[in-house]
């Protein structure tokens, strides 16, 4: 327990440090003495840091709950096709000649959510064999749906005539972050993480297997549907502001499990923190590696994440 508190303090410290670095470095270097009234810091970099941290929280948390509820350490919103589904929705919203606001909510996350749900529903249905969802089939179905979705995405991009805008958004980037995006995303983040946290006891019971979870009074099917909804909502929210950023939900929970164990009460908040650290750091790299040119953060995450996915796959197969 003591160890876990220490880990928490370290993680918070790292997040603070990475965020500070991210604020001051970039194509324009800002000295800590020039802070007050500095537009670059307050209007460009700070919202960008906050936004990337928020996206990290959302993606890592949805990874944890998808892995828990599907009892599969390879589950991740990107791999399961949730992200690509959300991408289709967001691309459609982006390519509409007018921007819609429904009930005061920007149409982009809404479209993203609807399509994320549609694709997760298809994946879930496809993986359902003999009354239960088999993890292997689920991953395969996810891969198939993801590649189908990316074909649709390409079609939308070509037909819409806004190739460059959508394509760059798709690769994943925080280069257009504003405070508005932060306020749009914050409610999803808060609601998602709070709901997930209170379901951590059911996720823990599921560590013992579905049947034992049932005998512990956990209504597995019902809770699975609810948590998939929550995970899709969080993913869609992240995708709608940042494009497709993969593997956060895979890498972070994996490391956090090694650090503090599989208890979801800790796994969820610690992973949220880890996700924030990873994306703030990755975004800093994206801005500075080839400065003044920017590399899409999605490209960086896939460069790191795909080999990592294979690594987990191999170590799992070895067991």
């Amino acid at each position: 327990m003591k160890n876990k508190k220490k880990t928490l303090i370290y993680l918070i410290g790292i997040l603070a440090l990475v965020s500070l670095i991210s604020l001051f470095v970039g194509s324009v270097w800002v000295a800590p003495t020039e802070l007050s009234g500095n537009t670059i810091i307050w209007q460009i970099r700070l919202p960008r840091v906050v936004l990337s941290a928020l996206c990290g929280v959302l993606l890592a948390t949805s990874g944890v709950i998808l892995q828990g509820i599907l009892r599969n350490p390879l589950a991740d919103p990107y791999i399961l096709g949730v992200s690509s589904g959300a991408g289709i929705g967001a691309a459609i919203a982006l390519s509409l000649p007018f921007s819609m606001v429904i009930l005061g909510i920007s149409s982009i996350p809404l479209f993203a959510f609807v399509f994320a749900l549609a694709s997760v529903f298809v994946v879930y249905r496809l993986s359902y064999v003999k009354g239960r969802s088999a993890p292997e089939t689920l991953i395969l179905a996810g891969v198939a749906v993801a590649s189908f979705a990316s074909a649709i995405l390409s079609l939308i991009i070509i037909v819409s005539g806004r190739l460059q805008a959508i394509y760059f958004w798709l690769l994943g980037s925080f280069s257009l972050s504003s405070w508005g995006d932060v306020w749009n995303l914050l409610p999803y983040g808060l609601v998602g993480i709070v709901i997930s946290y209170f379901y951590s006891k059911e996720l823990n019971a599921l560590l013992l297997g579905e049947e034992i979870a049932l005998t512990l009074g956990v209504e597995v099917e019902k809770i699975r549907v609810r948590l998939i909804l929550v995970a899709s909502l969080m993913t869609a929210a992240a995708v709608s502001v940042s494009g497709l950023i993969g593997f956060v939900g895979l890498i972070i929970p994996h490391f956090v499990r090694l650090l503090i164990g599989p208890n979801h009460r800790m796994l969820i908040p610690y992973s949220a923190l880890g996700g924030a650290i990873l994306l703030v750091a990755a975004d800093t790299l994206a801005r500075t590696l080839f400065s003044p040119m920017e590399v899409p953060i999605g490209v960086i995450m896939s460069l790191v994440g795909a080999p990592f996915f294979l690594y987990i796959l191999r170590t799992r197969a070895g067991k």
Partner: protein
Amino acid sequence: MSGEEALVVKDLCCGYDGTIVIRGISFQVERGEFVGIVGPNGCGKTTLLKALIGLIVPTHGSIDVYGKKLKELPRKDISRMIALVPQMMEPVKGFTVSEMILLGRTPYFERFSFETEDDHAVKRWVIAELKMEEMADTPVSNLSGGEFQRVAIARALAQEPRLMLLDEPISHLDIRYQVKILKLLRKIRQSRTVIATFHDLNMASRFCQRLILMKNGEVIASGRPDEVLSRENIWKAYRIKAEVKTNPKTKHARLVLLP
């Protein structure tokens, strides 16, 4: 019905995906009894246990637990009344014995809260009851099969069930742990009802008050161990020639295989 029965099963039929495994079983279990279910592989022992805890819905017949109809009970209520120790439970990597036992308190957690002082008190009671103080902080993945089986039972006990079901609790244990687990179950049944499946007829005879012998999803004999373990019944169930002797010291029925 006197209301003293822990379990009343009537004409139970059930199975998986249209294949019927249990074909019309009826029996009763009194409160505080330790009943052993025996029979050859594939006779439906595990399926019966799953039906008794509501994991499988009967296609026919009824199950009453402590005077309540099982099919009308919500999952949460069942989980506070009945606990199951499955045949194979995987140790959760990274959990300690104490954390594992606490998982047994899940039925008592409320939606927006976590374990309370009560839950910790029950956990401590279980640990004391099973004399596990020394291993409480050991990771479960470091335990031997026999020790882990005790943790699995402790986890079920933390549910404070009135009826405890165990699927082959001693099958993969050495003889020392077999006796240890059976003695533990005999102690548990003093305050609750225990039903367990067994392959080892001699162990079942030695520790259970009553045996139910099954074959092909039916009960072919039921009663005191010395009544059930007869030459004819053993032949009927297993197609094995055996003689039934009496243990001269404990007076329990015991099988001797004939060539």
